[in-house]
């Protein structure tokens, strides 16, 4: 699904933000991406959501090397990826409904399907009464839920989330992680960048630990520990 081989990234002529990153994520996997602030998590995610190309090394997405791809070739690959941005990046002039509907409309889905799916999902994330609200009138938590709904509305093959539960209380955070789990069980590959240790321990998925531009892959925590935590 995702393969990085000695990939590096620098902005302009600045220092390398990511250096010699190599890892492979299998289809249907679920990983947490963690590390201290400024370690390069957002930059690594930007390579994964095809917002940038590596300045060195190789990045392969869905079995295709993105390095030499043209803009028009990237568009269909991007449609398979859902992204929850740390700063949400909602379009401020669009209602919650239209923000969530955007990826479906870009894919040219019929308007009836758009209407039904968006309404259902917004109700599911607890925003059924905010369909026509503009982001500027919503709280940070509500905006985050809109951003998450927008990322998952197309049932993407790869879901990338940058601190998706940062503004949410624990209960809604767990609920959304459960949604991600459900998507994962349906085959979506998921990478979530987070600092939330409790969340990572509770769900126990393997971690990509990024520190000073270098990446380590930590395997899944003991399933028994997860079970015990689940009970209590």
């Amino acid at each position, binding site marked *: 699904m995702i393969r990085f081989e000695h990939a590096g990234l620098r902005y302009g002529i600045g220092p390398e933000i990511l250096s010699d990153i190599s890892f492979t994520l299998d289809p249907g996997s679920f990983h947490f991406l963690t590390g201290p602030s400024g370690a390069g998590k957002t930059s690594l995610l930007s390579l994964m959501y095809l917002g940038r190309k590596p300045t060195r090394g190789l990045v392969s997405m869905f079995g295709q090397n993105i390095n030499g791809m043209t803009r028009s070739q990237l*568009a269909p690959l991007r449609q398979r990826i859902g992204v929850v941005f740390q700063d949400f990046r909602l379009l401020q002039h669009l209602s919650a409904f239209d923000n969530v509907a955007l990826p479906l409309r*870009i*894919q040219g889905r019929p308007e009836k399907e*758009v209407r039904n799916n968006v309404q259902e999902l917004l109700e599911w994330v607890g925003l059924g009464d905010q369909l026509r609200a503009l982001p500027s009138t919503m709280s940070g938590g509500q905006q985050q839920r809109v951003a998450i709904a927008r990322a998952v509305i197309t049932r993407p093959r790869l879901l990338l989330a940058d601190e998706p539960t940062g503004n949410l209380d624990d209960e809604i955070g767990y609920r959304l992680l459960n949604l991600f789990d459900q998507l994962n069980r349906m085959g979506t590959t998921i990478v979530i960048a987070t600092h939330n240790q409790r969340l990572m321990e509770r769900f126990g998925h393997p971690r990509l630990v990024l520190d000073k531009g270098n990446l380590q892959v930590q395997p899944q925590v003991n399933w028994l520990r997860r079970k015990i935590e689940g009970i209590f």
Partner: protein
Amino acid sequence: MARVEKTVGTSQGKRLYDLPLNRDEGTGFLILLIALMSLLAVLAIAASFTLSAMTERWTSGLENRITIEIPAEGTDGRILGRDEVTALSDRALQILKSTPSVHTAHMLDESELTALVKPWLGSGLSFSGIPLPSLIAVTLSDAENTDMRALEEKIISAIPQARIDTHETWLNDLLRFTKSLRLVSAILLVVIGITTATAVAGAIRSRMAVHAEEISLLHLMGASDNYISRQFQHNAFVLALRGSATGTAAGILTLLLIGWISGQMGANLLPEFHLGIANMLAIAALPFLAAALAALTSRQTVHRALKDMP
């Protein structure tokens, strides 16, 4: 008062634009500019049509015609009397009527001469006592196959002071002049088109800079360049249509005003200012042409600018 967002379809139907293009600053300026350009274009097109009509009017009917003037002055400089001039004219008429290629030959009487000089000298004139030349209007059955030189020699040998005017020289000058004016109109239209396209391209580039963040987001969601350019294209089409329709309407009103003023002046020397239905339809098509030009320019500009984005 908050501006109402336009949507298509139901209350939660598809929006017209994903980008806030219909809220952008500078929209009014662009509409005004396109309106002014369209007004100028209407005037240029109308001028071109009027010149065509004038040329048509001047050339039609003159192709097979020549005019023979018998001056009221003899070869020795003596002023000829009315009867002498008439006698010379009759002789010329006889020659003309015996020439096979001459279809008709008609000597203008005083009332016709009066009508002829009326634009310059006005009405109510009496020519009695004034030595007047005689004019013979000749219609040829086939000008192209008529030996003009032979005909001229025949007339001159009988009436040495006669002058034969084939209208060719002044008509050619006039046609050259109107052709130049029409070329100027065409150049003016091209300049108007280039100015409009440049203004639209500038406005689109500025809007793309303002909405760079939103455009980048659409790209990350998998929007193709065509998806994004379609929004700008549609917006430019609508704005140009509005601007150009306003400018064209103002242009048509101006034409009607000019027509009314020239009618009031009653000046026979001025060209007749009248546009036919076909001409009016061509002018009415201007807003759609302007809108198409704006849409095309917008598409090209967006695609060119998107090439620089990741």
